[in-house]
């Protein structure tokens, strides 16, 4: 399923990971590899634990069992992993007290301290948010906040993108825009692990998507 794994290129390995919520295992052990230029599309019914697994991959949550490796090293306290990946969760990480432009400027200084302020406006333009540059994040619509979060991802210039339902609340035009951005990211040898309800439309993107199904963990089933 995954192209030949070149050992030199760092990739993400998840080896039979199991996550629990209040001591109950959520899904069957999950294993997958994500290498350059590949998209892992996690699917599964609501509540099976996609978000929980995503947060475990980011290291916020400790796995019940199994391992997550980056460059064949465990991700726990692995600064190299954190500096090569970016996370977009349900909360789109923009403080409501700032305007769109200020928020992106803050992240730009955080990711690359020396970067010049000039290239924030073209970025906003790329996601057609330029009109909202000086609007406080509080007054943006849910879809616009999502696109602003995608803009933050582009600012971070990271290899591995971990996205939790990136399209939620985004209109069709915005969705196409974001899928194009994904295609550019993949073509420049980036990696994406995303969860999404519904199918991806962009044909180029579908070329390198491998689907990952999460099955509800059921003690009865386990015995059979």
């Amino acid at each position: 399923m995954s192209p030949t794994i070149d050992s030199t290129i760092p990739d993400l390995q998840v080896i039979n990971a199991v996550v629990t919520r209040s001591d109950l295992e959520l899904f069957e052990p999950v294993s997958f590899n994500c290498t350059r230029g590949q998209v892992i599309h996690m699917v599964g019914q609501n509540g099976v634990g996609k978000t929980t697994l995503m947060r475990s991959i980011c290291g916020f949550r400790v796995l019940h069992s199994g391992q997550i490796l980056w460059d064949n090293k465990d991700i726990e306290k692995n600064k190299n992993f954190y500096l090569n990946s970016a996370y977009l969760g349900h909360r789109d990480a923009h403080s409501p007290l700032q305007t769109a432009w200020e928020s992106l400027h803050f992240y730009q200084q955080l990711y690359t301290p020396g970067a010049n302020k000039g290239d924030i406006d073209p970025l906003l333009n790329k996601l057609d948010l330029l009109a909202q540059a000086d609007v406080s994040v509080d007054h943006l619509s849910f879809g616009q906040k999502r696109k602003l979060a995608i803009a933050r991802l582009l600012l971070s210039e990271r290899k591995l993108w971990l996205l939790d339902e990136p399209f939620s609340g985004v209109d069709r035009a915005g969705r196409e825009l974001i899928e194009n951005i994904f295609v550019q990211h993949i073509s420049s040898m980036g990696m994406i692990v995303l969860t999404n309800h519904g199918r991806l439309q962009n044909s180029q993107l579908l070329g390198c998507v491998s689907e990952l199904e999460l099955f509800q963990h059921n003690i009865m089933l386990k015995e059979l």
Partner: protein
Amino acid sequence: MNVLLKFYHRLGSPREFYKISSALIPWLGWTSLILILLASYLGLVVAPSDYQQGDSYRIIYVHVPSAWLSMFIYVVLAVSAAIGLIWRMKMAYVIMICSAAPGAWFTMVALITGSLWGKPMWGTWWEWDARLTSELLLMFLYIGIIALYNSFDERRVAEKSTAILAIVGVINVPIIHYSVEWWNTLHQGSTVMRADGPAMDVRMLWPLLIMAFGFNLYYGLTLMQRARNQVLVQEARSSWVQSLVTEREQQ
């Protein structure tokens, strides 16, 4: 030395802990009972009455051991919290949280018996004496730990947060104690509980030490019992609990 290490590792696994605690409980139970009864008899009957306070000082045999024990339990709680955080041992967290309840109970006993003793000696039910005040603040620390632990729904997160609070608390307990001591001497001069110092008559001192030792064993007993229950709750889904339950049924 490796016998101790092996024992320490065996304590680490919940299943082993359950077996060890089940074995220990009857022993701890009987020895602590004998010690406490002996100390009570010595303290109430044999020990001479104090020339100044008459027989009211006999409350010391209950007040001082529970005060000492409430401090000791908080230290045990903080040490097991540190072990839990550093070596990520599940059982350390179990010991931590199962010591919180007895700790709070003994602090309450120390406070109530302290005020009962204060009435005849100082004339009021509550006296802002240094020891009683720091005992009161220790009570608040225990309440904080129990309240924090129970306010999380995910046990894993609750354990780590409570461990942090326990360690921050244990660093502050001596600071609180000495600042209250200093504050008390500033305002009122020291009201030394004369019968408290080691200069006591030896017949008065022995029951106190036996009672303190009995209380410590008693703490071990109630800790083992509560930890055993906590292990059963946490490991309810594991296979060894299910086999234990079915095998115990055939007995």
